[in-house]
């Protein structure tokens, strides 16, 4: 059994064969999404609870579609609609939710490590749908799936991650995953947004886009949060767009078969120009499609945990 974990909390603790297994299952489940009736009974009778303490339409919708296509019952508790108020923490809420006897929790939270804390407390499986600046494992898996579809491999590729590395769980999860799979990860962004220690974590660090764009097989563009200006990390969005924005003229220096990725939501005109986001190198919509497949794979692997003989 290649995947025995109770939880999927991060990419950092995964073995290569586990990543391979998830990607393999995701590839086979992707076919379901092209059928006229996009539903299989695999998780019938299972309960998946979406705990979203941070607004995220995209990821929540993706997990919800994935769960429904596997016929699971789903509940959503989100920061904007529920009793999640200041003072009531995730661990408080958990006590009430346990009464529903959920099989899988899918949690998104603004604080790093929250999925770990939840996993320590519940017998149910926990899927980390993004915790603070820590990890976003399903995003990294769908990114790896997308890269492999376009490039045929991960091993030996140079993947350039551009932007706010310091605050990005997407960057971290991709760094761990891609490095494990044999790719070279280069992170590029302003010095205020890349911790000095990142080179000790397996990434090549660069601060000048011009130097690294020609080497990249993949350019992964990160969203720039507007609050970085208040934290004195950047003088202005305008300057960021000028120095680190991925636009057509920068892209003209890249390899002809480079692919452009973005985890969304995009600030068009800041970290990425509209013509690049919608241009021929962009695989951003493939990421969205693969997101459902990867999340189906994770729900399948963890939701089926008790029945070890399950097959797709």
């Amino acid at each position: 059994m290649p995947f025995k974990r109770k939880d999927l909390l991060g990419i950092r603790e995964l073995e290569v064969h586990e990543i391979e297994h998830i990607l393999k299952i995701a590839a086979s489940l992707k076919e379901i999404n092209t059928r006229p009736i996009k539903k299989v009974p695999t998780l019938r009778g299972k309960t998946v609870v979406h705990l979203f303490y941070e607004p995220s339409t995209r990821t929540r919708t993706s997990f919800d579609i994935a769960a429904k296509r596997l016929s699971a019952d789903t509940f959503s508790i989100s920061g904007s609609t529920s009793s999640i108020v200041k003072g009531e923490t995730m661990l408080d809420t958990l006590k009430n939710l346990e009464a529903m006897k959920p099989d899988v929790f899918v949690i998104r939270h603004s604080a790093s490590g929250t999925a770990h804390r939840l996993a320590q407390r519940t017998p149910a499986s926990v899927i980390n749908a993004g915790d603070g600046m820590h990890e976003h494992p399903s995003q990294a898996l769908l990114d790896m799936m997308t890269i492999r579809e376009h490039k045929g491999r991960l091993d030996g590729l140079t993947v350039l991650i551009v932007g706010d590395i310091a605050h990005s769980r997407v960057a971290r999860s991709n760094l761990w995953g891609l490095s494990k799979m044999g790719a070279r990860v280069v992170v590029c962004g302003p010095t205020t947004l890349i911790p000095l220690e990142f080179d000790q974590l397996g990434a090549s660090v660069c601060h000048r886009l011009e130097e690294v764009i020609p080497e990249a097989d993949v350019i992964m563009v990160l969203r720039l949060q507007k609050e970085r200006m208040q934290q004195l990390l950047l003088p202005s969005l305008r300057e960021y767009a000028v120095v680190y924005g991925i636009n057509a003229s920068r892209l003209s220096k890249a390899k002809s078969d480079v692919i452009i990725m973005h985890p969304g939501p995009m600030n068009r005109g800041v970290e990425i120009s509209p013509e690049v986001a919608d241009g021929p190198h962009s695989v951003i919509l493939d990421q969205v499609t693969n997101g459902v497949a990867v999340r189906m794979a994770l729900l399948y692997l963890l939701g089926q945990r008790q029945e070890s003989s399950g097959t797709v």
Partner: protein
Amino acid sequence: MLEFEAVNTLYRRGRIIDPGVGTDMTADILVLEGRIIDIGPEIDLGMDLQNTVKEVDLRGLWVTPGWVDMHVHLREPGEEYKETIASGTRAAAAGGFVAVACMPNTKPVNDCAAVTAFIRKRAREEGRCHVFPVGAISKGLKGEDLSEFGELREAGAIAVTDDGRPVMNSLMMRRALEYARNFDFPVISHAEDLGLAVGGLMNEGRVSAMLGLRGIPAAAEVAMIQRDVTLAELTKGRLHIAHVSAAGSVRVIRAAKARGIAVTAETAPHYFTLTDESLVGFDPVFKVNPPLRGAEDVAAIKDGLADGTLDAIATDHAPHSVLEKDTELEYAANGMIGLESALPLVLNLVKEGVLTPSQAVAKVTINPSRILSLPLGRFKKGELANLTVINPETAYVMDSRTFQSKSRNCPFDGRAVQGHAVLTLVDGRPAFSRLER
């Protein structure tokens, strides 16, 4: 203070380690009606005392002046659900401490005679060891107006600090150092530049970068210590740096001492025992301020203890209930309990060869006593006995469920350690004992 009777005991053949007077020898100690009557080899009781004085064999055990913890949070008044003066001093005695200095960040803040007097009264009524209140530098710890140091001194405070938060205003720190000289108070600095530390949850470094947790750079501590030693030089005030955690801080304090500036410093057991790698599981029990640092910092702290840059070891005992600790790391309170885990960790410095037994004992006896001008920390014939008997070899696994403290936020649970207190005599009375009666 204690319900127990003063002892009449001849302690035989213990290893007496008293760095305050420079002794480390096997000898007897005779305590009559709680007072140290004699210290020496093979004390002869004589006919008249033989029947009334108990003899206890302490072979293989250490006998040291009573340990002094110069930095604890007893939480009373105001947060008695975390700790009380009764429970905190019981924990102290069980950990081998005969005295604690308690920080003023209670509710209300200890910034006036009434609160100081209240703490002393509660300590007299229910305390198991000596309690020395530390007053606030600023009223309400707000950093705006100076507390009335004279009134605090009169009521029994022995130092001032805004511990829990730094004195961000440099003029306020200057005035505190100047004004404290009137009352011979040391000013205890919680050194942290809040601007640099903002939002931080752990040490800034490789591990915080890996975990995606906002970091507190060592510079937040080092820069503030640099400011404070500069102000100590300017004012000739007496500065004491609390809970030193970083290599850079040790360097700054070492240099300041070399220049003759009146600065002393303490560190805590967690800063020479744990590193920021502990945060990998996101367990809030490891969340503390200043944060656990890297391995190089731990090495530098040990160097600082060895060469005397760091004068004292204090626990920064900071009890919190599950309400503050059993939560997401981001929302959890800072702090660890320490009174009942410190002794074996201090002894471990001896096992590691960092300190001699005499140096280790000095860090928790004579040195903190001198910094706070306490009449403790060394043996003196005729005085009430404040002493700690230690079995340095007893091996066990740390388990906070056995602790006297009301709180359980101990980061050392499950750790195999050696050494515990066998007897804690406070003013000649057994505040804690594992000896059979």
